[in-house]
């Protein structure tokens, strides 16, 4: 009798648990090279959330050039969270889309950037053109692969890194603009996103050097063979801080605010940071970064804030309509 009672109670409890378990779906709209990172992270978070709440969460991913993705979200792509390449693209969600508050960057630690990266060069094995630093990229006969700064966040980091290098070496913005103009004359194809540029360089065999996210360069080595390509670390580069945030208007409407926030906060946990490091993103947690010494080159990094007065200013000066990129590329 006791056994039957226990069995019935257990079944009832299981039934109640099953009845109350929710099935939640999130959409993470991200930039081009984060596919592999979020495939792994999403699995980890889903398991964590299930253990914590009993709810099943499925995270769908959308990838593309960061600027293009931001416009997609503004135009109605139903993102619960965005994990984009740069703050300027997320700012657009606040300024143009009115989807998030203007102070979104203060909602999570480290300016809402749970991991960082930088820009390095990927060249053919043996570095046949002898490319060592930024000024090698403007030499005649060097074919440089980089995406379009109008649509790709990675491309904007590339652009600013080259600009700052030239400004320091040649002195002044005018010289830097001339330098970057020469660099873009060596660019035969402009892909819309970083992953597209990787395809152009690695799979289509175009160009002598790919300006790549550090994580993307390592991804290319891992996927396409270290015997075919190698990474060149320039003398200086930019500290790329890809930010994340939840999209307030959408999560409020869908009722996914709690899980969306928890999803992004999980990026800061030890597990989230380890996953980032494994996928060649520099974790904020230095103890975890130390566990992956081979994943990150030693390089002098400067920030957008220090060199360009922040993303808002950099965006307006260089990438807005009529900015320096338009001036360069129109020529």
């Amino acid at each position, binding site marked *: 009798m006791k056994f039957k009672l226990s069995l019935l109670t257990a079944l009832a409890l299981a039934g109640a648990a099953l009845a109350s378990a929710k099935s939640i779906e999130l959409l993470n709209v991200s930039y081009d090279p984060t596919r592999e990172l979020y495939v792994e992270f999403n699995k980890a978070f889903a398991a964590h959330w299930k253990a914590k709440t009993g709810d099943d969460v499925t995270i769908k991913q959308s990838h593309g050039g960061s600027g293009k993705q931001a416009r997609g979200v503004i135009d109605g792509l139903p993102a619960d969270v965005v994990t984009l390449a740069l703050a300027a693209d997320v700012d657009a969600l606040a300024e143009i889309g009115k989807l998030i508050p203007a102070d979104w960057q203060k909602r999570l630690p480290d300016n809402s950037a749970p991991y960082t990266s930088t820009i390095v060069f990927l060249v053919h094995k043996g570095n046949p053109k002898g490319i060592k630093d930024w000024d090698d990229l403007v030499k005649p006969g060097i*074919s440089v692969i980089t995406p379009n700064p109008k649509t790709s966040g990675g491309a904007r980091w590339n652009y600013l890194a080259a600009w700052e290098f030239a400004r320091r070496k040649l002195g002044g913005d005018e010289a830097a603009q001339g330098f970057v103009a020469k660099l873009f004359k060596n660019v*035969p*194809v402009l*892909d*819309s996103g970083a992953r*597209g540029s990787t395809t*152009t360089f690695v799979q*289509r*065999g*175009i*160009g002598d050097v790919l300006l790549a996210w550090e994580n993307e360069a390592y991804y290319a080595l891992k996927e396409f063979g270290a015997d075919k390509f190698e990474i060149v670390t320039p003398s200086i580069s930019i500290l790329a801080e890809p930010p994340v945030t939840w999209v307030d208007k959408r999560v409020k409407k869908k009722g996914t605010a709690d899980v969306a926030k928890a999803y992004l906060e999980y990026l800061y946990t030890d597990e989230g940071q380890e996953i980032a490091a494994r996928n060649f993103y520099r974790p904020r947690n230095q103890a975890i970064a130390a566990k992956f010494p081979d994943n990150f080159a030693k390089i002098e990094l400067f920030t957008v804030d220090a060199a360009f007065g922040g993303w808002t200013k950099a965006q307006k000066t260089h990438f807005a309509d009529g900015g320096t990129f338009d001036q360069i590329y129109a020529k």
Partner: protein
Amino acid sequence: MRNSTLRKIAPALTALLALNPALRADELSDLRQALKALEQKILVLERKQELKDEAAAAAAPTTPKITVNDKGVTIASADAVNSLRLRGLVQLDHRAFFNDNGAAAGLNNNGFVLRRARLITEGVFAKNYSFQLVTEFGGSAVSILDANLGIAISPALQFKLGKFKAPIGIEHLQSDAWTFFNERSIANNLVPNRDLGITAGGDLLGGKLNYTVGILNGLADGASTTNADFDNEKDVVGRIFASPFKDDAGSALQGLSFGVAGSYGREKGTAGRTSGYRTDGQQTFFSYLATTITDGPNWRVSPQFDYRNGSFGLLGEYTVSTVNVRPSATGAKSELQNKGWQLAAGYVLTGENSSYAGVVPATNFDWSKGTWGAFEVTGRIANVKIDDQAFPLYASAASSASEASAFGLGLNWYLSKAVAFKLDYYQTNFDFAPGAPAVPSAAVLRQDEKSLITRFQVAF
């Protein structure tokens, strides 16, 4: 030259150059570099094309689709869930009546008529919600013929709300552009035209059974709503229509559909009586006296069928329309029952299929190509009998016929699906109630009506 081809010939060129002792090593190197540069250029061109293709493919799912064909102009969202369609119907007629100059002043009824000029807007939103707005610029006044909203729950349950054709007469429900004849038969006088209300309907048994039920304001025979109900009563309408052999390919009965429709309601007031029954030539042959009012139940029943077999088509209906009337507000009430029927047939001489939804010519008329479109011959007989009790208390035997019998012969030339030229000859004979004068007071009734109606039609 493809990149792969270049790769294939590069070693051959190199080998050839190596065999030639006159060539120096640096020349060989230059050639290699030139080939390499050329290869890169080709790769860049290929990649640029690839990116263009990718961009086009990515843009495609969000690009609305615009279709222009003989069904109108359709703008549909990429996912086909929303669409907007613009259609039109223009019918320019010429009516010629023969032997009708016996009246003192003669009848002034020959001439061109803009019979219909319609702009039709239809749309679907969120897949299951549709609307239709039909504006009429032909006739004597601009009007909104149809304005309705559709809600599709499933193929078996679809709601329609607004102004639309009352679901009773089979020929009446057929599109104005695709009837066998330019004008519907005189039997069509006995069913109401466009009314306001709500219907539910759908297809059952895999489309073998179609049903419609609804509640409408209620109208007199042949009348259209003026956007206001003339009394507080409503009509219940219903139609059930079966196509039991529709899936029996090869069967002679595959194209047979039949059913019955009807309405029941109460009417009270002068607007409840018909404004008049018309001949094929659109001249009034029967009307109630101005003092007559309706008061009481009215009902209609209309068994009907449609049969298509290859080029041959046949359509028939029999309609009984019953109305309770008084000669004045205080006069004695009588129940009048008017009856009508028609049998119409068509045969497409050029071999295309006859269809309730119109003939689609195998080729369009094109003088330069020597193609002629499709030709169809048609024939029809019809009759309307007015209740004997209508005379003389409710209708004048001098100005109204008690019976009209008509036949028609026609030739339809479909220049394309959208454009047609139609030529119909109609003859209507009249009978009169006992006591009617030898010469009716209504000039149109003094002789049999013989008319030739030609039509140029654009329908899309």
